[in-house]
């Protein structure tokens, strides 16, 4: 997957090159991290738990967007529209047919795949900016369709959804949600990593590099593009379905253009072209407004600016995004790698060759 980082460790077989984890130290760290994740809900308070759930929820969509934009190189500004598609599929099926979780989740995925196909079709002819614009247009169309449903059916403030139930047990405990979302997020993560090290992921990276060369290498460019869109959109729609259940509420207001921008910001801030980046970026984007709020109350500004907290958030968010774009295009992952390299090379300071 990546370059070997430990001394005395050499890859001698192809399996080593494909392995998700290289060394024993990495495995040990991962195990420790997993234990920490599992123990988290029993230690954390209600607020921290909600934050963690938000991070996990958003990480699914961010990883999906990273597959599409970071690896396959297709811009999408419409991922909030896909979340909306998943959420509204769930909401509509629940309201109109009383469908259970086991029906709405696969239907959301199916709708996501279908929309992915529709989103993807313009990509066969369009590139770069034009593609970004077509996804942006689709975002507006999908959200408008949801809004139309709301007004037509008289749910003008939004569609209420009961929490999913298994047998007689109703899932409304945040701790239970934490584990469900954690499982979903980890499943997405493993699925994506697995795709990326296989044939599909290599094809995506090839079309990102240069389409003509990819085609010359025997890659079906159309199929690769469409598969990137379908996979990414399906995952995002599933995230939308989970979002609907977690909030217990679907409304077109929740899927504004700002949400789409947040997702794009997450992968930019995290670092394009890295799954770790998608996760780091998600953590950053979710925690950022709360950080701003804490900072404001620490400065004693919160009373004076309490009515415009969201404006401060907007401004600060835009500023941070600009700073990352200008000064750290590699994102948080770039910083993380530099820190790693510093420790690896210590006491020497030169940059590693080829970076």
């Amino acid at each position, binding site marked *: 997957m990546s370059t070997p980082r430990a001394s005395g460790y050499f890859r001698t077989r192809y399996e080593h090159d494909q392995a998700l984890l290289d060394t024993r130290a990495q495995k040990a760290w991962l195990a420790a991290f997993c234990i920490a994740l599992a123990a988290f809900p029993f230690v954390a308070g209600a607020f921290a738990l909600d934050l963690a759930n938000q991070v996990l929820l958003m990480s699914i969509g961010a990883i999906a967007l990273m597959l599409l934009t970071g690896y396959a190189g297709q811009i999408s500004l419409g991922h909030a529209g896909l979340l909306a598609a998943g959420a509204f599929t769930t909401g509509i099926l629940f309201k109109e047919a009383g469908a259970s979780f086991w029906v709405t989740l696969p239907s959301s995925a199916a709708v996501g795949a279908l929309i992915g196909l529709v989103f993807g079709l313009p990509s066969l*002819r369009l*590139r770069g900016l034009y593609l970004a614009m*077509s996804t942006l247009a689709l975002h507006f169309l999908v959200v408008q369709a949801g809004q139309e449903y709301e007004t037509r059916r008289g749910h003008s403030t939004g569609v209420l959804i009961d929490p999913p139930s298994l047998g007689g047990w109703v899932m409304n405990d945040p701790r239970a949600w934490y584990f469900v979302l954690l499982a979903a997020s980890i499943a997405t993560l493993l699925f994506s990593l697995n795709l990326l090290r296989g044939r599909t992921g290599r094809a995506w990276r090839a079309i990102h590099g240069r389409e003509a060369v990819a085609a010359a290498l025997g890659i079906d460019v159309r199929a690769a593009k469409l598969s990137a869109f379908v996979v990414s959109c399906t995952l995002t729609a599933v995230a939308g379905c989970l979002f609907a259940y977690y909030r217990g509420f679907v409304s077109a207001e929740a899927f504004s253009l700002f949400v789409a921008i947040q997702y794009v910001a997450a992968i930019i801030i995290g670092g394009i072209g890295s799954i770790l980046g998608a996760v780091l970026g998600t953590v950053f984007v979710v925690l950022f407004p709360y950080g701003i709020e804490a900072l404001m109350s620490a400065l004693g500004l919160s009373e004076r600016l309490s009515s415009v907290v969201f404006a401060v958030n907007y401004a*600060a968010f835009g500023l941070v*995004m600009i700073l990352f774009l200008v000064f750290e295009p590699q994102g948080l992952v770039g910083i993380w790698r530099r820190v790693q390299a510093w420790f690896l090379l210590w006491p020497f300071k030169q940059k590693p060759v080829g970076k």
Partner: protein
Amino acid sequence: MQLAVNIAVLAAIYALIACGYVLIYRVSRVLSLAHGELMMLGAYGLAATASLFAGNPLVAIAASAVLALAVGFLVYGLLMWRMTGESVLAAVLATIALGILLRGAMILAFGTQTQYPLQQLGWANASIAIGGARISGAGLVLVAGTALVYGALFLFLHASRWGIRMRAAGQNPLLAAQRGIRLHGVYALAWGLATFTGGMAGMLIACDAGIEATLVTIGLKAFPAALVGGLDSLLGALVGAWIVAGAEVLIIQYVDPLLSDVVPFFVLLAMLVIRPWGLFGTCEELDRV
């Protein structure tokens, strides 16, 4: 008749905004998604100068126009010049980020209340009758102003030194730079002019309907007009504005007023499927991410 007048006013709005998108795209191949916010900033600029120079509205208008031009130069000088030569995605995202930043900053600076700069200038928005249809005074000025701006831009781009430099830089930046054209100067001028025209559109809309958050949406809805006509053609922007405005007004009239926000994007998608480079645009190979 009333329908035709409505279409004309809306088309003038879209055309005036769209020429900003076209100017920036044509010269620097960057799409500015902060245009709606810059427009709104222009409108707030007018409100601010109107209260500053209370009593002489003409000075206020001139001051706000200069302000809009200066903001455009500032945007390029502080942010966008760093994005020259970066990937398309990075530049577009930078403008998106700038848009969010501006939106937050404007709420902080000016509040969320709807403002009416026309009243602050001390004028009233009279309604004028033309052959059985009614048009507001600001709407009439808008149509005239758009015609004026387009005429001036055509003259500027084809007859003046700086206009020819701008077209050269848009056609081939490398060759233009080798001929001694200062690209940063040309790009900054494009941003300045685009913000100026956008700011004018913002001011005129604000005079007609007041400054609200929907101004940004109008800015975004004008983008399809630019694309339908072809992102690098001014004439195209004019034609595209008519098409989009016509479709929007007719659908509001005969189908469903709720659809008004999506009609332009529907037109955009249709155009992208049929002829992605627009009616008058040049067919080009676009960059990857």
